């Protein structure tokens, strides 16, 4: 496929790998924020192709993984409400909350439907005017504009039975929280490509300016990631950390202004609870006052009960980059993609699932 095959060219990849080997002198630690990048790196064996001077860490960029149990429990409680139809992206189905999962409550009779898009969720709402349709709104800045668009569409059409449980999260504030914690020492950041397609490259400026972190916005093909690593090595060898875009076919410095406009019209920043990281101010999105009638949390009186965390699960530490999946005693034994204990094993881009599918070296 066009714009994919060209960026999987093995010959060019070899040249970029050679260059990284020649240029990289000092030991550096790079974090790929995004779970999509983790998949590319593990699937194509990129870590093994890099010199020992370049250490790669996986970050918290998996929306399913960072959703806290307290929030998952709300979605599950909503699914149990009489007359409610839950519309959700498939990734959320198997994620265990404190007591159950959307898949389990569906087996018990709840009406939980997997959708590809908010457009499908709206269609379900149109076809079932007597039922309440709750869309489970998870995702980063990439996805939030599409949820905003669905709310605006529902408003325009006067669809009264459509609701959103907004658990959206924003990426730059959580990176800032990780850097502030001092728990993980980083030299460079592979910035998420499709989040940046929306917000642009400028919101990463603080990392270079205030923390001296080299930043490169990367695409998702192996050549994209290798090029980004080469650019990060170059910046760090020169001692000039800044923000650059490697993924120039998909990302502009200012981002997608129309998408930002819609997102800001419907949502406002709010505190958000990140698994393993805790509550980070201004790192989530809630519906603005004028759209509160679409807010599932305000519209239903649910009691999800006290939150329980899975025993022995290291997802939280893995998301912060302080542990890797192979440090976890449950990995591959008690916790597998078929029977996941934590969300990092459920989502196809979770670190644990990536390690499980593509090897653990």
């Amino acid at each position, binding site marked *: *496929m*066009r*714009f*994919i095959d*060209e*960026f999987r060219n093995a*010959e*060019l990849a070899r*040249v*970029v790998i*050679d*260059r990284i080997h020649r240029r990289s002198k000092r030991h550096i630690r790079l974090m790929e924020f*995004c*779970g*999509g990048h983790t998949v590319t790196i593990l699937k194509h064996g990129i870590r093994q192709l890099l010199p020992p001077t370049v250490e790669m860490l996986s970050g918290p*960029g*998996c*929306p*399913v993984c960072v959703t806290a149990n307290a929030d998952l429990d709300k979605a599950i409680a909503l699914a149990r409400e009489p007359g409610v139809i839950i519309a959700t*992206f498939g*990734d959320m189905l198997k994620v265990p909350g404190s007591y159950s999962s959307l898949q389990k409550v569906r087996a018990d009779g709840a009406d939980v439907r997997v959708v*590809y*898009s*908010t*457009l*499908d969720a709206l269609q379900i709402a149109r076809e079932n005017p007597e039922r309440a349709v709750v869309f489970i709104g*998870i*995702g*980063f800045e*990439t*996805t939030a*504009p*599409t949820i905003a*668009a669905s709310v605006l569409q529902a408003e325009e059409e006067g669809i009264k039975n459509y609701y959103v449980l907004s658990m959206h999260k924003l990426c730059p504030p959580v990176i800032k929280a990780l850097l502030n914690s001092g728990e993980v020492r980083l030299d460079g950041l592979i910035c*998420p*490509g*499709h*989040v940046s*397609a*929306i917000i642009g490259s400028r919101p990463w400026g603080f990392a270079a300016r205030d923390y001296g972190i080299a930043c490169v916005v990367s695409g*998702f093909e192996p*050549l994209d990631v290798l*090029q980004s690593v080469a650019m990060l090595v170059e910046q760090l060898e020169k001692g000039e950390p800044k923000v650059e875009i*490697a993924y*120039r*076919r*998909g*990302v*502009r410095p200012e981002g*997608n202004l*129309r*998408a930002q406009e*819609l997102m800001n019209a419907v949502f406002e920043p709010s505190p958000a609870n990140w698994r393993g990281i805790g509550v980070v101010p201004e790192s989530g999105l809630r519906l603005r006052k004028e759209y509160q009638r679409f807010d599932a949390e305000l519209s239903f009186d649910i009691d999800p009960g006290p939150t329980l965390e899975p025993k022995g699960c290291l997802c939280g530490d893995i998301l912060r980059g302080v542990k890797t999946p192979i440090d976890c005693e449950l990995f591959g034994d008690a916790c597998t993609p078929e029977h996941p204990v934590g969300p990092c094993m459920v*989502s196809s*881009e979770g670190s644990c699932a990536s390690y499980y599918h593509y090897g653990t070296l």
Partner: protein
Amino acid sequence: MCLAIPALVKSIEGNEAEVELGGISRKISILLTPEVKVGDYVLLHTGYAINVIDEEEAMETLELLTEMASMEG
């Protein structure tokens, strides 16, 4: 979750477009990319075009890498 794949825009009607990806046709929303034209490639994410792919930039990136190869080869 933030997966977005290139899709070719075949026709446009209002806020909707018909796109082709890997031989499959489907309808998508172009509400987030009002500037899109027939013949453009877009990044498709959960039924919405989230950006128009800049073909010139794509070519430049590949040229840059090819140049690197010829310099070092």
